[in-house]
Structure formats: C-alpha cells, structure tokens
C-alpha cells in the first residue's frame, strides 16, 4: 500500500489529489505505466514524462528511483515558488 499524491495540473487532470494504491512497481516509471492504465485522466496527466517531477517520501527523485519501500509518492510539474 502506497499513498500517491498529485499536485497542480497533474491533480486537475487526474481529478483528485490523493489515493492509496496497491502496487508491485519497483521504480517510479513502472508505477506511472500502471497509473496510465487507470483511465483517460491519468493518461493525459502522464502524457509528457519529461515534465513530470516526482518525490519519494518527500525527497525529490527521478523516473528510475526505487519505490519498493516508499510510503508516499508525489507527482507534480516543475515547481514555481518564490
């Protein structure tokens, strides 16, 4: 069981900001492939992997990061703070 969070336009495309899912994915990229099968919103949200950022347990990671021990995974576009 892993908590998955979505922010900004990724959240809007998917339609919700958080869900808990059951997955055997070992890498971020595997999880994205799984999520894309969940519907059009997901497909649209993850259609351009180059603009997707990821945090694993609140630390920035990348598409190859290991998620087998993660509790919380977040997807979001490049940050625009400040």
């Amino acid at each position, binding site marked *: 069981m892993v908590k998955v*969070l979505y*922010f*900004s*336009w990724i*959240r809007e495309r998917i339609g919700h900001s958080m869900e808990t899912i059951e997955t055997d994915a070992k890498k971020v990229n595997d999880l994205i492939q799984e999520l894309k099968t969940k519907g059009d919103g997901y497909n649209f949200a993850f259609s351009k992997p180059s603009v997707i950022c990821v*945090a694993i347990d*609140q630390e*920035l990671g990348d598409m190859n990061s290991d998620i087998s021990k993660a509790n919380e995974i*977040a997807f*979001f*576009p*490049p*940050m*625009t*703070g*400040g």
Partner: protein
Amino acid sequence: MRVSIQQKPFSLTNELESFTAANTAAGAVVSFTGIVRSEPENPLEYMLIEHYPGMTEKTIIKFMEKAAARWNLKDYLIIHRFGKLNPGENIVLVVTSSKHRRDAFDAADYLMDYLKSRAPFWKKEVSEKGVGWVESKPSDEIALKRWK
C-alpha cells in the same frame, strides 16, 4: 531562524522590524520580497498558490541548512504564502543577516533561487483572459547552476 509557510498575509515592515530588533549585532541585513504582479496588458484577478505540506517545510529547512553551512550568517527568515493572493500582496520574504554584506547578499540570492524552482509550490493565475498554471522558466534552472 524561522520558516513560516502560511496562508495569511504578512507585513514586510513588521517582519523586518522584529528581525532587526533581534539582530543588533549584524552588520548587514538583506531582504527580498516577492509581490504578486499584475500586467497592464493582462490584468490579474488573483493568484492561487498550491503547495505540498510537509515536504515544503522540510525542503526549505534543508536549503537553509545549506546556506548556513556555506555562508557566515547570523540569522535568517523565510516566509512563503499559499492560497489565494491578490495583486500587490506579498508572496515571499527572505531575510538574511551577517557580519559582511557579501554573505548576506549571496545567501538571500541562493535561497530565492532554490525557493523558485526546488520548493514544492505551484502558482496558478486567474485573469480576464483565462486561468493558467505558471510555467517554470529555463532562466530559473540556469540561475541554480551558479551555486554548484
């Protein structure tokens, strides 16, 4: 040494007043204030700032620790707002103090560069022309390279 991620507005002058009152021994104080802009050619109605509670604080504290290890700082303050902000409202405040101006300037500059593109905030602009998420700028990534 304070970080505040808050919805409510803040006053630059009140914040600086308490900061400088606590920093009488510093020779140099630098402040950066970011304000919601509205362009005459496309007047902004308001801005919505979303963030990632938990990760935001953690990330900013990490930047601060890096700044404190790199420069000789007496004190620092970061305030960043989220939620709905109107044009003219303050978004962000970074204040640094040091014995020497170079350290205070560089640390404030560094912290702003990291807040811009490494702290989990996302800005959405609502104007007459429509609603859109602010896109990250390549110049912000280039700015970060200066600190490697």
